[in-house]
C-alpha cells in the first residue's frame, strides 16, 4: 500500500511562507506560480509584513491561517523558523509540507540535526514531508505549480520524481516542447522523509498517471528501492535515468567477481531485474516516457519500417537490426502483393517498405492502416513525411505565392501532411500497435504542418529514426517482460 500523497498532489488549499514583495525571492516566486497556473483552491500567503503581494493579502503569521482550508504548506522560510510554522500549520489542518528551503542535511552538521527534527515533527504530526531543499511540486490535474522555478507543463500522463530539481525542470521543458504532458512532478530534494520509491508507489495508484519518469543519483538503501519498485513496474512502466554512473572503480577484494563489480553494472542488473526502463540520457528518458504515455504496448518485437524514400529506411533498418530487443519484420507475402497493387513496380518490395516516390494521394494513409492491421507486424516506424510541408513552406514564403497555382498546391501539401499524421495516430489506435513518426523536422522545423499535426494528435514526432528506435526498444522490452512475468 502506497503512502497517501494526495494532500501533496491534490491539496484543497495551499499556504506559502516566506512571501515578501521582492520578486526575486523564492516565497514571491512560489506564490506567483501558485496563483498563475490555474489552481482553484484557496491560496494563503504568509510573510513578515501584513499587506498585499501580487494583489494577494499577506498574513503576518501562520497563526492567522484559517482552519481546514489548506492541505499543503510550501515552506520558503529559513530552516530555523520552520518547525514552529509546521506545528501551527498542522493544527490548522495542513496535511502535507513541501519544504523548498535549504539549510538542512546538505549544509553540514547543524543542518543534519535540523532535518532530523523536521522529519520527527512530520512523523509526530502525521504529515507528508517532501524535500527539504527541493524546487517544488507540480500537479496539472489540480492546476498546481508550487515551485520556486518554472516551467508549468501541459497536462498529460507522465509523472516525474527526481533527485535533482533541475532535471524536473528539464523534463517539464521537454513536455512543453513536445506537447506530451505531465500529470505530477516533484523534486525530491534531500528526500528526508519521502523518497523516490514513495512517489513511484503513489504514482502507480494515481488515475492521472500512466508512466513514471525519474532521475536518480544516490540510492543509500538500494535493496529497499529494488524490492519496492519491482512491484511498481508490474503495474506501470518506470523510466529511470541514473547520474553518477562512472564512479564505480575497482574495489579491494580477494575475489575476481568483486573487482568486476562496478556500481553501474550492479545498478544496471538491478534495474533490469526490477523491470525498470533504463534510459541512457535525459532526453531519451523523456522520449521513452512520452512513448509509453502515447503509444500502445506492442505484443511482439517485429518492426516494419515505412518510408517515402531510400536513405531513411536504410539507416532505420540498420538501427532496428542492431537493437537487441527488436527484429526487422519479414515482409509478409500477402502484404507485398497488396502493395504491388498500390504502387508502381519500383517500390522496394521488402522491409523497409520504400515507396520510392511512387505514392499518390491516398497511398500513405492506406498503407499505414494496411501494415498496422497485419498480424505479423508488431510496430511501425514511419519516415520521410514532411517533405510536402517543407515544399509548401518555401513556396508560401517565396515571391510567387499565391499566383501561378501555388496557393492551391501549398494548401494541398499542407492538407496531405495533416492527413499523414492523423493516419499514423489512427492506425495505432485502430490496431493497438505503436506507430512512431520520425523526422528531423521535429526540431529543425517544428512549424512544419506534419510535425504540428503529429503534435496535435497527442503523439511525439521523434527527431530522428535512431531515437524512435531507441524508444520503441524500451516499449518492446517492457512489454515482453510484462507478458513473461505476470
Amino acid at each position: 500500500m502506497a503512502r497517501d500523497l494526495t494532500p501533496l498532489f491534490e491539496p484543497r488549499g495551499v499556504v506559502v511562507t516566506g512571501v515578501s514583495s521582492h520578486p526575486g525571492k523564492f516565497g514571491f516566486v512560489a506564490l506567483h506560480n501558485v496563483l498563475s497556473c490555474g489552481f482553484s483552491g484557496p491560496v494563503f500567503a504568509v510573510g513578515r509584513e501584513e499587506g498585499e503581494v501580487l494583489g494577494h493579502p499577506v498574513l503576518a503569521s501562520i497563526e492567522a491561517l484559517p482552519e481546514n482550508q489548506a492541505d499543503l504548506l510550501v515552506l520558503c522560510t529559513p530552516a530555523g523558523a520552520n518547525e514552529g510554522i509546521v506545528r501551527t500549520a498542522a493544527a490548522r489542518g495542513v496535511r502535507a509540507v513541501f519544504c523548498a528551503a535549504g539549510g538542512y542535511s546538505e549544509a553540514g552538521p547543524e543542518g543534519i540535526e535540523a532535518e532530523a527534527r523536521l522529519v520527527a515533527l512530520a512523523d509526530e504530526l502525521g504529515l507528508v514531508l517532501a524535500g527539504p531543499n527541493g524546487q517544488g511540486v507540480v500537479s496539472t490535474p489540480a492546476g498546481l505549480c508550487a515551485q520556486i522555478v518554472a516551467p508549468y507543463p501541459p497536462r498529460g500522463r507522465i509523472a516525474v520524481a527526481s533527485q535533482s530539481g533541475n532535471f524536473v525542470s528539464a523534463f517539464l521543458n521537454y513536455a512543453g516542447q513536445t506537447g506530451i504532458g505531465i500529470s505530477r512532478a516533484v523534486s525530491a530534494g534531500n528526500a528526508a522523509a519521502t523518497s523516490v520509491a514513495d512517489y513511484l508507489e503513489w504514482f502507480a495508484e494515481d488515475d492521472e498517471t500512466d508512466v513514471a519518469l525519474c532521475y536518480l543519483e544516490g540510492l543509500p538503501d538500494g535493496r529497499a528501492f529494488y524490492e519496492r519498485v519491482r512491484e511498481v513496474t508490474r503495474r506501470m512502466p518506470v523510466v529511470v535515468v541514473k547520474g553518477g554512473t562512472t564512479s564505480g572503480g575497482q574495489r579491494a577484494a580477494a575475489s575476481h567477481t568483486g573487482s568486476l563489480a562496478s556500481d553501474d553494472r550492479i545498478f544496471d542488473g538491478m534495474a533490469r531485474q526490477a523491470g525498470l526502463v533504463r534510459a541512457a540520457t535525459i532526453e531519451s528518458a523523456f522520449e521513452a516516457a512520452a512513448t509509453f504515455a502515447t503509444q500502445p504496448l506492442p505484443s511482439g518485437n517485429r518492426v516494419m519500417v515505412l518510408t517515402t524514400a531510400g536513405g531513411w529506411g536504410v539507416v532505420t533498418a540498420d538501427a532496428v537490426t542492431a537493437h537487441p530487443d527488436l527484429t526487422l519484420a519479414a515482409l509478409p507475402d500477402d502484404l507485398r502483393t497488396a502493395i504491388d497493387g498500390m504502387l508502381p513496380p519500383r517500390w522496394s518490395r521488402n522491409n523497409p517498405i520504400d515507396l520510392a516516390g511512387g505514392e499518390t494521394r491516398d497511398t500513405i494513409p492506406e498503407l499505414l492502416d494496411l501494415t498496422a492491421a497485419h498480424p505479423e507486424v508488431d510496430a511501425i516506424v514511419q519516415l520521410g513525411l514532411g517533405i510536402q510541408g517543407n515544399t509548401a513552406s518555401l513556396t508560401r514564403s517565396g515571391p510567387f505565392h499565391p499566383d501561378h497555382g501555388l496557393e492551391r498546391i501549398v494548401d494541398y501539401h499542407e492538407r496531405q501532411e495533416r492527413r499523414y499524421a492523423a493516419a499514423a495516430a489512427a492506425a495505432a489506435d485502430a490496431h493497438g500497435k505503436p506507430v512512431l513518426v520520425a523526422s528531423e523536422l521535429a526540431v529543425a522545423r517544428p512549424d512544419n504542418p506534419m510535425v504540428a499535426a503529429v503534435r496535435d494528435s497527442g503523439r511525439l514526432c521523434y527527431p530522428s529514426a535512431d531515437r524512435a528506435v531507441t524508444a520503441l526498444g524500451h516499449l518492446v522490452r517492457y512489454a515482453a517482460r510484462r507478458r513473461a512475468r505476470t
Partner: protein
Amino acid sequence: MPTLSEAASRRIVEDAGVAVSPWTTAADIGSAEEAAASLGLPVVAKLCGDAIAHKTERGLVRLGLSSADEVGAAAADLLAAARPEDGEVELLISSMVRGNRELIAGLIRDEQFGPCVMLGLGGILAEAVADVAFRLAPLERADAFDLIDDLGAQSLLDEFRGEPAVDREALADTLMALSRIAENTHIHSVDLNPLIVVDGRPVAVDALVETA
C-alpha cells in the same frame, strides 16, 4: 575477509548444486598418485590451504599431469613450496577438464544492493573485456536466464569451434546455486573462476569462498 581453501570452497559450492570438476584431496605424494589413478589421467595438482587465495600467482597449480611420475614430482614440488604463513596445507587433485570457452560466475555482497550474482566471460582477457552482468539474489529462474542473455558475447554461447551450444538450463542451475549460497550470511563472496564449458555444460575448476 578471510578465505577458505579450495577444498572447503568446493564443498560449499558443490553442496549448493554447482558442477565442479571431479576432485579429491591428498596429504602426501603417495596418496596424490593414488588419487590421480582413481580420477583418471590427466589431472591437475594444486597446493590447497585456507590462506592460499592466489595459487596461480605463486605457481601452485600444475596442469595436465599425465603420468604417475609427473603427479608424484608435482606433488613433491608443491608440498616443498608451502610457506610457514600458509598454515595447514594439503594437495588437491582434480580431473583435467577441457573446453574452449571459459566463463566466470560469482557472488558478492554490495553495500547498496546486498547479495548479487555475477556472470561474465572468463579467461585471461576477462578483466579487459569486462563482459559481465549482475542480478540481485535471490534470483528467480527467469532472472538467471535474463542474466545469461545480458552477456554481450552471445555468439560464444552458441555452437563454437566444434563444441555444442552452452546448456542454458545447466548454466542457470549454476547461477541459482550461487543465489542459494547467498542465503548463508556467513559467506561473503564466492568466485567460480574459471567455469569451463565442457560439452556445453559449465564446470567449475576452481572455487574461492570468502567468509564474513
